[in-house]
C-alpha cells in the first residue's frame, strides 16, 4: 500500500504542476497575424458555437432537470451560477453562457 500511496501522491503533484502550467500560461499568440478583414469576418460568421440555451439543456440535465429561468431573478442566478460552476465542475464558458441565457429568459 505504501508504494501505491507514493504513486498516487506523485500523480497528484504532477497533475497540480501540469494544470497550473497550462492554466496560467498565456493564450496570446506569439506573433500578431493580420488577416484581411473580409476573411476574419467570414471566419466569425461560420464559427459554430453552442448557445447558452443549448448548454443549459445539456449541462444541467446531466444531474437534475434543467431549472426554469423564471424561478430566480438575475442576482440570484449569478450566485447560483458560481455555486454550480464549482459544484458541477463546469468550464468558465459553460457557466457564463448558461448565466447569460437564464438572465435573458427569466
Amino acid at each position, binding site marked *: 500500500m505504501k508504494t501505491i500511496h507514493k504513486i*498516487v501522491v506523485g500523480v497528484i503533484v504532477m497533475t497540480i504542476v501540469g494544470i497550473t502550467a497550462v492554466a496560467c500560461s498565456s493564450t496570446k499568440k506569439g506573433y500578431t497575424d493580420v488577416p484581411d478583414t473580409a476573411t476574419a469576418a467570414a471566419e466569425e460568421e461560420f464559427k459554430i458555437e453552442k448557445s447558452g440555451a443549448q448548454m443549459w439543456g445539456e449541462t444541467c440535465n446531466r444531474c*437534475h432537470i434543467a431549472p426554469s429561468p423564471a424561478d430566480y431573478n438575475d442576482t440570484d442566478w449569478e450566485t447560483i451560477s458560481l455555486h454550480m460552476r464549482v459544484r458541477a465542475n463546469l468550464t*468558465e464558458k459553460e457557466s457564463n453562457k448558461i448565466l447569460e441565457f437564464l438572465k435573458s429568459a427569466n
Partner: protein
Amino acid sequence: MKKLLVLLIAVVFGGQMYGQTYNTFEPSKTQFMIRGYGHTGFEYMDSGDETESTFLGLAYAPIFLYKHSDRLMFEAELEFVLEGNQLETGLEYADVMYVLNKNITARAGKFLLPFGTFMERLHPAWINRLPNAPLGYGHDGIAPSSGIGVELRGAFDLGGPTLNYSVYATNGPRLNDGSDEPEEAGMLRFENYEDTNLAKAYGGRLGLLPFSDSSTEIGFSAYSTSDTGEQDSEYEDVGAFLFALDFSFVKQISGLGGVIDVKAQYNNSNVDTATYFELEDDILEEYSFDNQSNSFYGQLSYRPTMASSDFVKKLEFVGRYSDFNAPEGAEWEEKSVQYAFGLNYWLSWRSVIKLSYQTTETEGGHDGDGLTNTDGLFVHWAIGF
C-alpha cells in the same frame, strides 16, 4: 408655527424624495441566499421476521450561499433529520472557494469529496431518482462522502470534449481498531474531523466528457493514505487505497420519445491487513482478514418528455441494481444485492413524488450470518428550493 410645519414637511417628504431619487435599488455586489431541499414520505419494510411501517418526518437540508464577489464564495449545508424520536443535525459541508482563473478554483473547509459522482452530485433527495442511496454508501458504506482539507478543481474546454479534474488533501479516514466497536474492526470511518495521526489522505477525480453534446461522462477517482490508525498505536501504519469508476449518459432520444439517463459507479476499497481481537468465550482471540470491499450500482431512468399528454410527460420510470461486498473473515462480512424499481411524478423541475419497490438480499452483515431478504415499499416527496 406655519414656518415650523413647512420645515417639518420639507424634512419628511424631502428625505423620501431624496431616497427615491438616489436609491437605484441596484443589487449589491455581495449576495446571501438560502437554498436547499427537504423530503418526507412513508416506508413499509418486510424482512420476514420483522415488519415495520412508518411515516417519515421531514428531513430538511438548508444550503447557505454567500457570494462575496464574482470569485469568492462561502457555501454550507446543514441537515436536520427526525430519526429514532430525536432530531439529528449534521454539517454536510462548509467551505470557502476562490476562482483563481478560468481553469482553477481553490476550496478549503469541509467539502463533498469527488469520489465518483453519487455523493457529490446525485445524492440530494430532489436529484436522486430513488428514495435512498444504492448499497455501499452511507453509514456502513465504503465510499467517502466528505472530508476536511483543501482542494483544487476546474475544467478545460477541449474544443468540443471537456475535461474536468479535482485534486485534494484531507484529514483522511480513521481506522476502527475494534477497541470500542469490535464488530466493526477494520472499517474505515471518514468522519475524521480532528486528525488522529500525521498522515493526510490525497485524492482526486478526472472526468472526461468526450462528446460535444456533453451527454456522456466517464470518471476515475482515487483516494489514498499511508496511515489510518491513531498516532503511536499499533494500527498507525495501516494504509488504505480506494478507487472509483463512474459513468453517466443523459440524452433526449427522439426515437424513444424522451430522455434516457444512465448512471453507474464502481467503488473499491483496499485496506492493509492488520490483526484485530475478538472476545470468544471470555478468551481474547486474534484474527486478521484480507480487508478488501467493493460496491457497484447501475441505474437507468426514462422520462417520456416528448409524449403528447402533459401527465405522461411528467412521469419517470427508474430501475437500479446495486451490490456490496464486505471482506470475508471480518465481523462485518457481508454480501448484498439490491434491485430497486421506481415510478416518479415530477410536479416541477425540482419537486418529485417517488413510488418505489426495493428488494434486498443480504448474506451476513450486522443482522447475523444467515441470508436475509428485505422487501420495501417507499413513497417519498422531495422538493428542492
